[in-house]
Structure formats: structure tokens, C-alpha cells
């Protein structure tokens, strides 16, 4: 089982954290700090496996990490996962991110934290590996994004109303426009 997935940059700033086991908030931050501390000390030409720190679990847990440019991808797993398999999984995850974001870089992860979570949700569920086929994952994420877009997305509400106001061509619109909660009554039809 995967106990936690952490992505942080070379200075230890978290870019994505996902725990599949309950930890209190301050404990989570402590784990991130400790993991960063352990992982940043590592040379570049040593193996990618670390016995985990004392906080995140006893002897059964390992940290498996990969360093891509400015980001560390760390998976904390127990003995039921194959170490080499997890290395491949990290690779698959990063390649999926690359496909979804088109040449993914750290900024993409920073500004689209929610989207990264959604992609991860299609790969790992409840600490177990769900899907490893990159194309499948990308396709599913795409479809869900499209569903969101059709509803207007997270930032939809005022943007649509405002653009409606701006683009209003008064001669053409009907008497009552009902866009969500905003009622705009137009009695006179003259250029705006």
C-alpha cells in the first residue's frame, strides 16, 4: 500500500501532498519537512530507496523517490509494493502529467494543484494502484475536464454574467434574461 505521495521542490515547498492514512495537520507538515530533509541530502548517483524517517512509520515503510529537474516525487510505500514497480509508476505519473499539461513544468503544478490531484486520483486510489495505462488515464481526465468546462468550471459564475453584460446586443435579446441568479430586465431596446 502507498501510504503517502509527496511532491515538493528543491527548497522543500510542497506542490502536492496526498496522505492515504490519517495524520494530523501538523504531523503532515512535519513529515513533509523530514522527508525533504532526508531526500535532499542524497547524492544524484545513489539508489532511489530510503528507509523511511521515524515519523511516517516503522521498519516496514520505504521512501521511493525520483528527482526531475526542480521537483522531487516521493512515494512512501510498505513492503507489499514492488520497489522497482513504484519507480516505474512514478515515471508513468510524470509522463501522464506531461501529456495533460503539454511539457509540464513546476509552474503548471503550482497553478493547477486541483487538476494534478484529479490526475493522481485516476492513477492511485486509496493507496493502491488503479490504472497504469497512460492513454487511458489521459482520456478519462480529458472527459471529466470537459464535463467541468461545460458547466463553467470553478471560476465560471461571474465571468459568464459579466461577459453577458458586456456583449449584450440589446435589440436582439428577449425581455427577460435569466442567467443563474441574476435577473436582468431590459425594457428599452436601444444601443448600449
Amino acid at each position: 500500500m502507498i501510504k503517502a505521495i509527496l511532491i515538493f521542490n528543491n527548497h522543500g515547498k510542497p506542490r502536492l501532498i496526498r496522505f492515504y492514512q490519517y495524520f494530523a495537520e501538523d504531523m503532515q507538515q512535519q513529515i513533509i519537512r523530514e522527508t525533504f530533509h532526508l531526500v535532499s541530502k542524497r547524492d544524484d548517483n545513489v539508489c532511489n530507496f530510503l528507509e523511511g524517517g521515524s515519523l511516517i512509520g516503522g521498519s516496514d515503510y520505504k521512501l521511493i523517490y525520483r528527482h526531475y529537474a526542480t521537483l522531487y516525487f516521493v512515494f512512501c510505500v510498505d513492503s507489499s509494493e514492488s520497489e522497482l514497480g513504484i519507480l516505474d509508476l512514478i515515471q508513468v505519473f510524470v509522463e501522464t502529467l506531461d501529456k495533460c499539461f503539454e511539457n509540464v513544468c513546476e509552474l503548471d503544478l503550482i497553478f493547477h494543484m486541483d487538476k494534478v490531484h484529479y490526475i493522481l486520483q485516476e492513477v492511485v486510489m486509496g493507496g493502491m494502484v488503479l490504472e497504469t495505462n497512460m492513454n487511458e488515464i489521459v482520456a478519462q481526465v480529458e472527459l471529466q475536464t470537459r464535463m467541468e468546462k461545460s458547466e463553467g468550471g470553478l471560476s465560471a459564475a461571474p465571468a459568464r454574467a459579466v461577459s453577458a453584460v458586456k456583449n449584450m446586443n440589446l435589440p436582439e435579446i428577449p425581455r427577460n434574461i435569466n442567467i443563474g441568479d441574476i435577473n436582468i430586465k431590459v425594457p428599452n431596446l436601444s444601443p448600449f
Partner: protein
Amino acid sequence: MTIDTKSYGDVITDCHEREDSNFILVSLRLRMPAPIRLRELIRTIRTARTQAEEREMIQKECAAIRSSFREEDNTYRCRNVAKLLYMHMLGYPAHFGQLECLKLIASQKFTDKRIGYLGAMLLLDERQDVHLLMTNCIKNDLNHSTQYVQGLALCTLGCMGSSEMCRDLAGEVEKLLKTSNSYLRKKAALCAVHVIRKVPELMEMFLPATKNLLSEKNHGVLHTSVVLLTEMCERSPDMLSHFRKLVPQLVRILKNLIMSGYSPEHDVSGISDPFLQVRILRLLRILGRSDDDSSEAMNDILAQVATNTETSKNVGNAILYETVLTIMDIKSESGLRVLAINILGRFLLNNDKNIRYVALTSLLKTVQTDHNAVQRHRSTIVDCLKDLDVSIKRRAMELSFALVNGNNIRGMMKELLYFLDSCDPEFKADCASGVFLAAEKYAPSKRWHIDTIMRVLTTAGSYVRDDSVPNLIQLITNSVEMHAYTVQRLYKALLDDISQQPLVQVSSWCIGEYGDLLVSGQCEEEEPIQVTEDEVLDVLEGLLVSNMSSPVTRGYSLTAIMKLSTRFSGVNRIKKVVSIYGSSIDVELQQRAVEYNALFKKYDHMRPALLERMPIMEKAASNGPTEVAQTNGEAEPSALDSKSLPSVTQPTSQANDLLDLLGGNDVVPVIQTAPPTKLLEESCWTCWGIFLCQVGQFLLLSHPCPSPSPPSCWTALAHSPSLMTSLQLFHR
């Protein structure tokens, strides 16, 4: 779009001011400016230059979000929760958003549900009562018309569902496990794993649904189904035997994966779906573990995978690794096992560190069962001790200790001692303990043993565990013919360096015990050194005053000095030292000095007997003497070694007579076999204290002064810290 930067309220005011004839009636539900977007917030936070600035911005935003939540605004709730989750990731409290997540989950919009479920998974868990409110929502969403909503519900339930939730919703999950929609089926399988983990009794419920899981074409479903089957087999032996019949099917699937040509859909670096292969191999391992028939059925495919897999990329090695583990775990034929170990041996020579690490780990697992096969790779393993990588070094060290046996002890020990010299401090304690254990088991000669111990003490003396000191002392005591050699070497080591406490403690004990051999220059093994009594006392006194000595060490040296009073000719110096320390600030030291002083003054006649040489200690695996002492009238035969040394039975018969007087025939003398660990520092003083309390009177009456050859109980007593307690009884 310039309007973005303005608040919505401003826009409406603009419209008002524009034309007088037109009027725009806007029923605004929004009294405040719209909450900023997630992107805005992130951008703002990134401009913060200090932690304090960031905290300020976040606090401001939290306040805005809180008021927005209070307004029960449906439009912006999803945006606010998204921002809250971002701030939560940075480490700021976000618990006030928990209820909002629930409201989002109940919404009809997919966007709301998506962020709501994510928030629930990140912020909630079964410890909060709030989470139960989700149950109904999840139930409805599990039956939603849109598969993605169903997927969200399954995901959330599978991540943080509590046992109550799982019990309520298991039926829905089971239904979805039988659906033909592969997207949902694979999620339902993992959700079922979570349910089984939370509520193991529900495992039977999922059994019928597993019937045709393996006939799926979709690899995602296959993968998660194998995970589900693995979980069920691991939890219940009944399930395990039930699923054994699936072995042929699993073998077939694996064969197809290997033999099928290039399949672009599942290809990873030239291998067809390596993740699924690894999963199946793991399940085969569990199924074949103690079953001959299943193991037999797997032999061929395992051999095939082992020989056909490409090893140039990591994926190939991952499969090979899993194959090796499976071969070692099931009842495979010997040819296959040799093949597996050879693959591991090849891994050891691989340039890739990860592969080497993984090989060492698996060799460690197999060294117990296939010792000889692993021995063949000993030299490679020992080479790994010199690797730069900390993880590899640790594994190599553990494996090296496992490989040590009577034949290779000399060579291995050389390597391990070299490793001890040069390794990081974090390894030294474990390595030292390992060396001691190995030396004890396989030492070819006593001299070699003592040399090895000396080497460890001098190179890694400060990392040696505390309990090794008594063990070492016992070892030295028992090697009678090596006493002179040992004390000489220890003395020389002390001259060089007094900072390593375990070394100093062992050395001072030995000097105290065998100082006469040292001074008389009786060493046979090597060139005896010339040392005078004064020089020895100089060294011991040096230990007492040095800042580097711990209180325990000081106690050892004071006792050693005292013991030398019977072995050396010049007693005055020792008397002086002892009397000085009678007013030491250290209570322990003071007590000892006072007692030894009393020994000089009032009980000088007893001194030689008390400070006699220690007898050979039997290494009895017995309980502490205190146990026996407390039950002075009752015997604890198991606690004592029956083979008592002949030299001590004679004197102890006197003690026995005394005990008989007390009326306990079955009291077995505790004297001859005290466990070594307790003997030296605490000694049997507790038991003797109690013993003497009761017997003291008799002793005084029947033996006004100790006989020339006193019971060796006195020697034990001599090394006890609080002689006084016992002596006081006689004084009465």
C-alpha cells in the same frame, strides 16, 4: 478581459451611471465583491517575500472565505473550497471548510462534486463526526447516471470510508463490481479492498462477484481484480484454498502477456503491461506458497519469464525481481531456485544502484533457506560494503553478518573490521554488536577472539552497546589462559586513549582483577611490557580525575584500585586515594570510597578474601538474582544452573548449614551461578543484603571471623557497591 479585475458590484454601478433612459434592474444576491480566483490567490501568495507576509495574506483570504461561507453562497463555494485546499497544503488550518465540502458534494453540478469530494478526502477522516453525513450523498452518487460521479463516490469511499460507511454501502459497491463498465469496475474492485480492510466480515459478500473478474479484457480491471484477490487470499486461508483453482487462469494470462507481440496500448519500454505481470506474479507467490500442486503448475511459466525478460530497462528488472521472489517463496524445484539466485547474483553486478539494492534485499530474505547458494556470491556482497550509497552499505552489512560461518570467519571478520573503521557513525553500533555476536559463535581461537574484541573496542569503542561490557568481561574472565595477554593489551590501549567509555570500563576492570599479572610481566603470547605498580595506579587515578570519564567509569576505576590493594605491595597510596574519595560529590563514588575505607580500617582481616579473584562464571540463561533472593525460603531451581563448580561447593556447604538453621532445606545456594550481567555492578548485593539480614546474626555467633577459605559468596560481595549495608549488620 479588463472587467475581471473589477468587482462585480463596480460593474453594475458603471451600468447605472452610463445611460439615464435605460435602467438595469439587477437583483444582486452578492453583496460583497466576488471571491478571487484560485489562480489569483496563488499568484498573490507567491509574491510574498517572507513567511510573515504570506501568513498575513492567507489570514486575510481565510477571513474573506469565512464570510463567504456564512453567506451560504452556492456560486462561489467551489472556488473557495479550492483555495482552502491550497492553503491547507501549505500548512494552514482549513477545518472550517469541512462542512462546506459536504454541501458541495450534495450539489448537482459535477464541478462542485469534484472539488467537494477532493476536499472531503483531504480534510475529513473517520475521526470527525461530520463524515457520516456523507454516507447518504455517496449512496446516491453511487447510483448516479453519470459514470464519473459514480467514480468520484467510489474513490472517496475507497479512500476514507469508515467502517460504518463501509457497512452501509458495501452492497452498492458489490453491485458495481459486477457492472460491465470497466471504468467503474476497476474502481469498485479497489473500493472493495478498502471495505474488506475496514470490515473483514464482509469479505464473503464479494466472493460471487469475483467469479469472472479474471476473464476481463480490460487491463485496468484485471490489475485491480488481482489486487482484490491478493487481499482476500492474504486475509483468509479459506479464500486462499478457494482461489487456488485460479492458478491455471493466471498462468494463462501471464503467458499471453509475454508471448503476445507488441501491443501499443500496454507497452512500456518494450514489455507488455509490466505492472500487471508483477501483480500476477505476486498473487502466484501467495497461492503457491505452501502448496505443491500450485507450485508445480507455475514452474514452467516462471522459468519462461526468468529467461525471456529483457533486462536492459528498469521494467524488465522489476518483473525479474518479482519472479525471483516468487520462485524463492513457493515450493519450486531446485534447478529453478539456482536460476533465481544466479539472477540475483547478476543483479549484484549491475551498474544500476537500484537493482543492486533490490538484489541485496532479496538475498537477505533467502539467505536463511538457501544459504549455500548465497555463499557463492559472498565476495560480491563484501565488495558492496565499500559502496558509497548508504542504503546499499546497510544491506550489505546485514547480509554479510548473515553469511558468516565457521569456515569464512577469519576472512569475513577482516572485511567487517575494515568496514567498522571506515563506516558512518550510524552503522557503528550495529556493526559492533554484529561482530561480537559472530565472534562469539565462530571464534577459531580464544586469542583471535580477544584480539577481535580489542580491535572493536579501540576503533569503535564509544559506539559499543552498554550491555556488551558485562558480556565482554565475562568472556575475558572465562579465558583463563589469556588473562595476562588481555590485561597487557588493554593496559596499552588505555595508555593511548581514555575517551571511549566501554573500552575504559573493560580495561579498568581487567587491571583491577589481573593487575598482578601485568606488573609481574607474565605474558606468554607477546612481549611482556615493563610496568610498575605506581604506573598502573597513575593510570587508574587518571581515569578518576579525567573529565572524559563517566560516573560509571569512575566507579569501575575506584573499585579496580581497591582490588589492587590485595594484589600490589604498596597499599598506602591506595588507602590515600580511597579516603580522598570518601568526600566526593558523586554519591555513588562517595559510598564506595567510604565502604572501602571501612574495609581498610575495621575489616582489614577480611579484605584479602573479599577482593579475591573472580571465579569462572557460567553463562546461565537465568533470571536475576533478585528473584531468588525475594523467595529466600523457596527454591527456584530453574533459575540456577545445576552444574556448580566443584571449587565452590565445599565452602558453600557452610552457608548451606546456616540456611538449614533457618529451616529451609530446599534453598539452593544462589552463590555459584549469578548471571554475568548482574554480577559485576549490582552483584548479588540485594540478595546478600536480604540473606545477611536474616543470617547475619548466626554468622556472627558461629563464625566470629571468617574461615581461611571463605565461601565465594564473599568474593561476589567484594565487588558489590554497597558493602556497607551488609557489614553494618555484623557490626551490630
